[in-house]
């Protein structure tokens, strides 16, 4: 059974996704380009054809106008041209060398306007000038008047066409065929002409299958219709579109391959990064990604990864040191336990000897117990676990209890323990705060001399509680001050060993204060004394 996720796993690949997007966009762009190109090419082709056809039509029109002006008038007048208006301004004959202006047609549709002076002669005048019998059949007269054979000869050459490709039809305003050349069953018939539309426009173009028609108004409302067999053009366009599709596909394929190559090249440093990153483990944390040779974007990622590794390494290093220190601290009492028991068991001894060894073992076990206890406290003092701060603690009560508790110890060492406690309440963990105060007091009493004093003071201010533990004891050398809150750091190893300190007391104090979002600071001068200042935010 194939896992469907693995089948479509490639969609999760950045490379494939980029390539798919890129291909899609490329396809759309190529399509739009091809369509626009085809459209423009078709437009220019048909423009060319139409220009030729229009030129041809103009020739026909001009010829008609030149050759048969009198007869023209015998045909039906333009639609809407009123007789009285025609009559008003009859310069005769009209200039024959000029084609009729296009405004004619529009004027015909605007009865209110005066026809221009170039208008064809009024019908009445023409009629007067013609013999009566000739005027009886204007169509035949018209036909007879025009040298159609000349037009026939002229046109295909002008249109650069084979004669059989061109059809020419001239209709009278009534739709009677005045002339037709090369017409066949495919040619346009009068019934198919959109006469209504033709009234409004100068030139009408239309496609019917492979025939392109061009209709213009001839003289006296005749309609000149050109039909052109454009199979050649259509074939050209078909070839062109096929070429476009092929070219687009080829371009697409080329761009796809090029894109894939570029993408692969771009992702090579990613692969290198991946390889390096996966080779970095907890035991090889000192390795880093080579940023120098990378591109800016990747270098940023690599720098970020390197920064993360730096922090990780520092963390691991701290953890390693901590573990080494902890194991060292645990090993020492363990060594006492083992050597004492081994010595005691090596031979029969008097009861006092056993007792002495047992006492050693007891001390060692107590030390281990204290150390394990401190280690557990520290591990529980995770700054993430803020939820342990739940209760309201009366700090002044707590301090009073601690001072009472330690007064005896202080008295034994000839040390005066004083307190100056103002009412003060904080939100926190009672057990941890007790530990904070007791650790500070033990330190102040232990690292003191006979006749010394320790003062525990508590003050409430607007921001919270400020607690100070001041003594006039040994003090801390300046070079040790920055390290005293570090785990297992000892100012004087011998003294603290003798007094049973684990080297974790101040580290615990620091953690407790930070957990309560407070601050702890120390001010000390060697041989003069030490002052710890703790600020804890109050409940509010």
């Amino acid at each position: 059974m194939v896992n469907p996720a693995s089948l479509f796993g490639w969609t999760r690949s950045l490379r494939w996704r980029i390539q798919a997007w890129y291909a899609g966009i490329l396809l759309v762009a190529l399509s739009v380009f091809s369509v626009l190109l085809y459209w423009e090419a078709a437009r220019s082709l048909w423009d060319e054809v139409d220009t030729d056809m229009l030129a041809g039509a103009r020739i026909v029109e001009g010829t008609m106008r030149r050759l048969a002006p009198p007869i023209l008038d015998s045909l039906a007048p333009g639609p809407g041209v009123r007789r009285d208006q025609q009559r008003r301004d009859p310069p005769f004959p009209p200039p024959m060398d000029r084609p009729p202006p296009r405004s004619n047609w529009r004027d015909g549709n605007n009865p209110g306007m005066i026809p221009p002076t170039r208008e064809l002669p009024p019908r009445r005048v023409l009629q007067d000038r013609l013999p009566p019998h000739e005027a009886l059949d204007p169509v035949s007269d018209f036909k007879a008047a025009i040298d159609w054979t000349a037009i026939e000869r002229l046109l295909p050459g002008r249109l650069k066409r084979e004669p059989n490709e061109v059809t020419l039809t001239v209709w009278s305003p009534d739709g009677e065929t005045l002339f037709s050349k090369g017409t066949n069953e495919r040619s346009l018939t009068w019934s198919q002409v959109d006469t209504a539309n033709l009234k409004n426009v100068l030139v009408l173009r239309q496609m019917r299958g492979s025939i392109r028609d061009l209709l213009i108004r001839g003289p006296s409302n005749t309609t000149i219709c050109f039909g052109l067999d454009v199979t050649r053009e259509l074939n050209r366009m078909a070839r062109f579109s096929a070429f476009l599709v092929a070219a687009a596909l080829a371009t697409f394929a080329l761009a796809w391959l090029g894109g894939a190559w570029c993408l692969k090249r771009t992702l090579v440093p990613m692969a290198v990064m991946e390889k390096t990153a996966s080779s970095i483990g907890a035991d090889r944390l000192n390795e880093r990604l080579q940023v120098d040779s990378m591109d800016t974007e990747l270098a940023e990622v690599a720098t970020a990864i390197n920064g993360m590794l730096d922090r990780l390494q520092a963390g691991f290093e701290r953890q390693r040191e901590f573990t080494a220190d902890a194991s060292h601290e645990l090993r020492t009492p363990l060594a006492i336990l083992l050597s004492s028991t081994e010595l005691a068991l090596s031979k029969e001894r008097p009861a006092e000897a056993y007792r002495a060894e047992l006492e050693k073992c007891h001390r060692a076990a107590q030390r281990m117990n204290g150390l394990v206890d401190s280690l557990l406290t520290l591990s529980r003092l995770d700054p993430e676990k803020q939820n342990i701060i739940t209760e309201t603690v009366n700090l002044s009560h707590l301090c009073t209890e601690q001072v009472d508790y330690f007064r005896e110890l202080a008295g034994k060492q000839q040390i005066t323990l004083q307190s100056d406690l103002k009412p003060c309440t904080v939100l926190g963990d009672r057990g941890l705060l007790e530990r904070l105060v007791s650790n500070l007091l033990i330190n102040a009493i232990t690292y003191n001399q006979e006749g010394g004093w320790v003062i525990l003071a508590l003050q409430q201010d607007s921001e919270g509680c400020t607690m100070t533990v001041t003594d006039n004891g040994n003090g801390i050398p300046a070079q040790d001050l920055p390290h005293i809150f570090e785990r297992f750091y000892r100012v004087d190893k011998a003294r603290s060993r003798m007094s049973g300190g684990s080297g974790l007391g101040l580290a615990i104090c620091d953690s407790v204060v930070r957990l309560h979002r407070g601050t702890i600071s120390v001010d000390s001068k060697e041989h003069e004394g030490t002052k710890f200042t703790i600020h804890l935010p109050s409940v509010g």
Partner: protein
Amino acid sequence: MRVLIVEDEPDLLGSLAESLREDGYAVDTSLRGDEGIHKALSWDYDAIVLDWMLPGLSGIDFLKRLRKVKATPVLLLTARDTVGDKVFGLDAGADDYLIKPCSLRELSARIRALIRRTTGNATNLITISSIVIDTGSKTVSMEGQSVQLTAREYALVELLALHRGKLVSRTMIYDHIFDEDDDSLSNIVDVHVSHIRKKLGRDFIETRRGQGYIIHG
């Protein structure tokens, strides 16, 4: 044989010292590095058991100062257990390295080995004519028969045997057989020698009057 132990844990120091004393060593102790180096430079110890982390003077600095003057064999006894620590400690001048917690028997064996090597012996067995001294089990036998010696007598025999063929002065005997707390009378060595002669034969130890004693190997 006289051994110095420098260790800042009083309880551990007590056990180590007691154990080595029971093994017949004369043991001096020190809780501080600076005090220890003073002793080490003042006396010719047969071996020194040294902790690394010491108040006053660290074990490494102890070694550096000692090595400028003396080649006393030093066993570094420490909780520092990494390979790097061992290499560093041995390169600083330690002759052996033992990690806490350790077995007292192992410590004893390593000290024996250290002393054996520095006196140029390859085995624990020293044979002088018909007398065989086993420094491992700390026993002496003559013609196959085990001879019972007190700890002091054995220590004296061992010292002379390890330096056989060489004159061993009375001062040297005092330095190596008795520890700093021993306030024995000055003629105690003569008493021990006469006891040994009774057990191992008159000619075993030769007296050089006014100079010391010698065993001819």
